[in-house]
């Protein structure tokens, strides 16, 4: 080691530097890249092993179109809902003159809840607003207000919407609060000294600066809902076809009757997720021009 530090050997040292990253890249190759390529190449062959694009054309079958539609609608709604209510809560935290302990409590809770999800979350939703849940019973027996008669059910998209909001909203708060906090006081003062009202300040100064963050976070929320599996599976038992759940049944047994079609469906999903992350990171870079 000490010997290799000698200047005369620096070029050789440089050539060997990449060896330090070899374990990492081997791991990534074996367990991320190679499996992804397997799915990708699988989508390009038919059952007889011939190269084909028909798998992608066959994506246009009712089950798959339905699953994509359900997933996209649910993700879009929970992303917009999470962004809207998360922004309101974030606004209240930053500008609401709340006591310090409450702000800390909210931020800590959001840090926890954003990592929630999965099976326990489904249990909570069932225990609260399931058919025998305590809130369902309370609203029906005390207030004469039967939410199931009004079309709510934990087995349809309204229940999933509520469950997903449980992790979407906190995620929004976690991202938007630092952004709101980094809006400089001078910007508001400058706007006010030019005679702007509070509303004009938000319309012409704060919101344009926040737009990339708001847009980027909404996209991130979309991606997080789009890839979610466990909550929906545990809540609906797989009765509502979401794209992740259909992929799950395809893994257990070739329900589509064509493995290649399964791979093509997965590929479509990865493309959408990749587009989300790319859009998010480019918007994030834009946001950093103003917000540091």
């Amino acid at each position, binding site marked *: *080691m*000490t010997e290799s*530090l000698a200047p005369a050997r620096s070029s050789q040292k440089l050539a060997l*530097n*990449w060896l*330090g*990253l070899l374990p*990492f890249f081997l*791991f*990534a190759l*074996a*367990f*991320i890249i*190679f*499996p992804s390529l*397997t*799915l990708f190449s*699988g989508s390009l062959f038919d059952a007889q092993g011939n190269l084909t694009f028909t798998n992608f054309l066959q994506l246009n079958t009712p089950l798959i179109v339905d699953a994509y539609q359900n997933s996209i609608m649910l993700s879009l709604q929970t992303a917009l809902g999470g962004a809207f*209510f998360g922004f*309101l*809560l974030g606004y*209240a*935290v930053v*500008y*609401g*003159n*709340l006591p310090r302990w*409450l702000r800390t409590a*909210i931020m800590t809770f959001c*840090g926890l*809840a954003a*990592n929630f999800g*999965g*099976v*326990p979350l489904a*249990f*909570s939703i*069932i*225990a*609260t607003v399931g058919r025998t*849940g*305590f*809130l369902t019973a309370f609203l029906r027996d005390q207030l004469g207000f039967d939410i199931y008669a009004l079309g709510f059910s934990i087995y349809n998209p309204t229940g999933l919407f509520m469950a997903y909001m*449980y992790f979407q909203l906190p995620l929004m708060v976690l991202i938007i609060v630092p952004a709101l906090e980094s809006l400089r006081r001078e910007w508001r003062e400058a706007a006010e000294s030019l005679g702007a009202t509070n509303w004009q300040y938000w319309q012409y100064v704060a919101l344009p600066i926040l737009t990339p963050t708001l847009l980027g976070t909404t996209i991130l929320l979309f991606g997080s809902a*789009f*890839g979610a*599996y*466990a909550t929906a*599976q*545990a809540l609906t038992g797989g009765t509502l076809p979401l794209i992740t759940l259909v*992929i*799950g049944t*395809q*893994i257990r047994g070739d329900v589509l009757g064509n493995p290649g079609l399964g791979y093509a469906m*997965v590929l479509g*999903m*990865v493309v959408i*997720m*990749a587009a989300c*992350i790319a859009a998010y990171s480019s918007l994030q870079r834009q946001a950093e021009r103003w917000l540091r």
Partner: protein
Amino acid sequence: MPKRINVFAWFIVILGALFFLLPIYGTLDFSLRARKGELSLLAYERVFSDPLFLQAFFFSVQKALLTIGFSLLLIVPTAYWVNWRLPRWRPVVELVTLMPFVIPAVVLVFGLIRTFSRPPFVMTRSTFTTDILLIAGYMVLTMPYVYRAVDTGLRALDVRTLTEAAQSLGANGPTILWRVIFPNLRGAILSGALITFATVIGELILASFLVRPAFGPYMESMGQNKAYEPAALGILSYALTWASLALIDVFARGNKQVASIR
């Protein structure tokens, strides 16, 4: 600030508190009602007396600990090397660590099963090799968080000075990592470890599709077959997750204070 905003803020916060706390209260309430007409810990007693529960739980704890160990062995040297010797490779390494965000768990497990269930690499035949696959999958899922935590920790250190000081005292590579870098990264490593633990302990997808008896699939099957036990399991796993994540919060705050002193 005008007073109007205060009222508005409190309204939002109370609404939010109702939305977030009612389900937790509902779960707790439900978990205590296994005996008709009174509050009891019966559901918890049933959970703890189920041999499958302990088996599944300790299976997952063991896998979580192994994942943490291997993850750190892989990520810390890599992040250290990137920070010290190959800063130009940073974007590439970061891109790879972010790939799990693009590949949802259900897609990852699909790829793993299709890749490792046929020659030349058959790993799904024996439980031992399937567990290797499971741990590798967990490492992939938690990689973005672990790498981020370790990298942030390393950037707050002066890696070059520390390394050169250790070298001038005659330390070799492994010694530097083990006796200089690891101790200095204690906070970052701990938060990476805890988030890994919290993720692995309740993970459903990988264990379920690789057909291993982990805690996530156990909870799911209880949810399908029992009424009150799932609520008790929910409360138990909240307690666990919250304990891990609250500890992260404590360490993150500790780190921030150090950073602000610097």
